[in-house]
């Protein structure tokens, strides 16, 4: 591989091999027609006097530019060689002046070269724009020798002026039967590689939220490049030379994550790489966990050494401009589970206004509501969080009941959320909120009492919830004659997680607690693994894995942004239930909401 670094004022420059075209042709048929190739920096190089062919032997496999005397490329006569030996001549002309280059040649036929006698030779003449010779080189030409040293320009240690064209003149050896055993009737040779000095490489980065493109100038493979993106957003990177992106393989090394939940999406990724198996001029990544990850960018041009990046994902700060007080919760759990925080926020907004203390008692539901709890009164952990029942089942030993004995709820605990419900009172016609005194044994409150007093507001019996079951008939009302377990038969927090759901997902805080009130989305609860977001994101994790067959959790291979969005929308649609009108566009709407909450990252730089 040829890659020579040359110092320049603009930064390290490299000699880059000119890409030769693939061809099926194996012999030279036309020496007269010039071939024009485009260089990476936008210039051209024109070769004439030979033809590109595919050639292979034990030393070479691939395309070379070949001139063959047998194919008619030769000329003889005193104008070319005083000894009238067969001559082939190739010219290489650049559209722009070149200050440095190397060229590698290969002798396909002919005798071995000898320094002490006649041998086939090659002379190179470097010319200026007007065709005037500037410098010359010559060499005896060994047969079938792939790597005599390449011809360099300028010769090391010398200072030569820029040139525009090169003339390659070759000739067979002078006939000398006493020294040579072949008959020099013809020969052919080729140019196997041509490397010219190219412009410096820049790296560009663009956060795909409308932010301006940023450029880091004149990067070199010997330096690690740091680039960063806010958690949840997309970053497009590219290596650029002279205005053209360099096709390359972008390869992430597995990352070691810290402070993530178990389970989490993408356990070895700080960023996702889209279309990861495709070599591209630019590559898009999405930040999914806080931290850093190594990226190796290997240009397809093997003359360019791989570049190494450290990709950093940082806290995005505010998610949009509204309801930002909850953003640290979304950032924390987005990072822990691998969901972009602003997309989590969009999902919660799709569910309704933000309410970290959202609470709803469910008396009727037999799968997660109080009719289910009644089947688990002696089962852990429900038994530990019971209210004393009218049948004498003891109050749960772990129930947080800080307002016990008071006349009003003043602090939040496991019982206090029931203050949102009312009861009819003998003291007046208007129902009033439940108080701490409304507990057994003296003030038992049944599910039926709560149902009858609050159904008008809570709509538990609405057909949208229960279909055509008439919960107001006596038979059904009688099914609610039990002490209401308002702490455990309820949903909590921003994501309205049913306590039963949380328990069956084996939720507990980092200190082992399972109190219902720890499902409220407060910073204190979040810090110990509580809050509905801990469960809601766990549900989303399962929905993500279940909604489509490929393992996109540990093997995230998305073609592009649309493919990623489609997966997240499927996840949301899997997560969502029971809203006929919204079922089909729930995920799309949540995604649309999330765009309102895209972090603005006003002061961040991709390349700090």
């Amino acid at each position, binding site marked *: 591989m040829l890659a020579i670094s040359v110092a320049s004022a603009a930064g390290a420059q490299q000699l880059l091999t000119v890409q030769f075209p693939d061809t099926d042709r194996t012999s030279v048929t036309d020496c007269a027609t010039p071939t024009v190739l485009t260089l990476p920096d936008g210039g051209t190089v024109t070769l004439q006097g030979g033809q590109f062919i595919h050639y292979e032997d034990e030393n070479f496999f691939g395309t070379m530019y070949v001139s063959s005397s047998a194919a008619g490329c030769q000329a003889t006569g005193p104008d070319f060689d005083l000894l009238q030996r067969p001559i082939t001549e190739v010219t290489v002309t650049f559209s722009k002046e070149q200050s440095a280059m190397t060229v590698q040649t290969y002798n396909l036929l002919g005798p071995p070269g000898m320094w002490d006698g006649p041998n086939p030779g090659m002379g190179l003449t470097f010319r200026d724009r007007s065709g005037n010779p500037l410098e010359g080189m010559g060499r005896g030409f060994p047969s079938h020798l792939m790597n005599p040293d390449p011809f360099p320009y300028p010769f090391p240690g010398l200072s030569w002026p820029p040139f525009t064209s090169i003339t390659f003149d070759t000739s067979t050896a002078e006939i000398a039967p006493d020294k040579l055993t072949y008959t020099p009737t013809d020969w052919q040779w080729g140019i196997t590689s041509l490397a010219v000095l190219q412009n410096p490489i820049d790296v560009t980065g663009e956060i795909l939220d409308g932010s301006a493109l940023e450029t880091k100038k004149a990067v070199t493979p010997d330096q690690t490049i740091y680039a960063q993106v806010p958690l949840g957003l997309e970053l497009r990177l590219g290596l650029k030379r002279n205005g053209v992106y360099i096709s390359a393989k972008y390869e992430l090394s597995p990352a070691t994550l810290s402070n993530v939940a178990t389970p989490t999406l993408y356990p070895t990724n700080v960023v996702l790489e889209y279309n990861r198996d495709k070599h591209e001029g630019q590559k898009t990544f999405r930040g999914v966990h806080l931290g850093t990850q190594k990226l190796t960018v290997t240009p397809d041009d093997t003359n360019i050494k791989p570049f190494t990046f450290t990709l950093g994902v940082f806290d995005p700060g505010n998610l949009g401009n509204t309801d930002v007080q909850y953003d640290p919760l979304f950032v924390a759990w987005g990072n822990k589970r691998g969901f972009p925080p602003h997309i989590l926020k969009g999902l919660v907004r799709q569910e309704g206004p933000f309410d970290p203390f959202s609470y709803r008692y469910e008396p009727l539901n037999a799968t997660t509501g109080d009719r289910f709890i009644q089947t688990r009164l002696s089962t852990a952990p429900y038994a530990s969080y019971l209210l004393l029942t009218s049948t004498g089942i003891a109050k749960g030993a772990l129930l947080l009941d800080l307002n016990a004995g008071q006349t009003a709820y003043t602090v939040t605990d496991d019982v206090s959320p029931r203050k949102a419900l009312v009861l009819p009172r003998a003291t007046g016609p208007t129902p009033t909120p439940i108080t701490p005194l409304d507990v057994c044994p003296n003030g038992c409150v049944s599910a039926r009492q709560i149902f009858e007093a609050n159904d008008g507001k809570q709509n538990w019996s609405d057909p949208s919830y229960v279909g055509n079951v008439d919960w107001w008939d006596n038979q059904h009302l009688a099914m609610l004659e039990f002490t209401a377990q308002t702490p455990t038969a309820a*949903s909590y927090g921003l994501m309205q997680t049913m306590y039963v759901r949380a328990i069956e997902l084996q939720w507990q805080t980092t200190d082992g607690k399972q109190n219902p009130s720890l499902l409220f989305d407060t910073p204190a609860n979040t810090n110990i693994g509580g809050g509905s977001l801990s469960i*809601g994101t766990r549900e989303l994790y399962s929905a993500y894995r279940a909604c*489509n067959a490929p393992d996109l959790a540990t093997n995230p291979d998305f073609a592009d942004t649309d493919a990623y969005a489609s997966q997240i929308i499927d996840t949301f649609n899997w997560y969502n239930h*029971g809203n*006929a009108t919204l079922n089909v566009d729930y995920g799309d709407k949540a995604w649309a909401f999330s765009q309102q909450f895209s972090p603005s990252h006003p002061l961040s730089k991709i390349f700090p």
Partner: protein
Amino acid sequence: MRTRYLASTAILFLTAVLPACGQLSDAQIVANAYPAELSADPDAQARFSTFVAFDMDGNGQTLLIALYTNGTRAGLSVVNRGGQVLSHPDTRSLKGFKGELEIVDLDHDGVPEIIVRLYSGHGANIPDTWIYAWRGGQLTLISPTQRVHALDITVLSQIAPVDLDGTGKLAILAFPGVRRDDNGNRVANGDGMVYALANGMYAPTPMRFTFAQSFVRHTASPNPTVKHFAASPGQATLRIVNGAAPGGLTVDSARVILNGATIAAPSSFKPQTRTLAIPVQLTTDNNLSVELAGKPGAGIWIIVAGPTNQ
């Protein structure tokens, strides 16, 4: 008599026919048939099943219709008492935390259909609903779905089967679900839709409804039941369907008052009158009072369709 069982009902029924000692119970048979694709999920956090038992083929052989979930995905199977899974349809998008089964003869052919309600365990606790028919010894999904990205999503949440036309073939009232308004209150989310059987599948009809509810005569002395509902003001049609439960008792008469105006009096309920369609004027907030006369358990449906959906 139309067949209609909830899963819990069936379980109670089965306690009376427990198998002899040494045989597996139906619950054990159902548990043993837990679908492989659900147990193979490395993230499965739960293992839930419920079932109903019914002679689906009318040959004296009770079959077990079992609903399973692993906390996220769900599966439906029909298992015979030998433990053989006879049918396990591949409904890729069947999802939920827990669920319920109901069997109802929706198409009036003597073979009940299976209504699957699956709950997420969060939010408003309103189910996704799917309906399967038992045809040729296989379960066939007959409820509507819609392809959204890679999923075929059910468009049914909570439903109610109603015999709207007296044919015995039940239409499906599909309730729209709820959403939370800007104050966090749960409110109706648009109009409900009505689906009817067409070529063995439930398909949407042009009919929409702003309000639909069954009213049942209770054992206590008849008293008006009062409901409030929101609507767009204007002309509408209030339909009264005599008979609340499919195949259930009909009322002898009723008095229906909407916004203070009597729109159906006992005299409106002539013998053999099954449905009444009454033009009404809706306001933004509507007050509906219904008083029934008849045997306890008898009932009616009241369905209000807005001006453009009649």
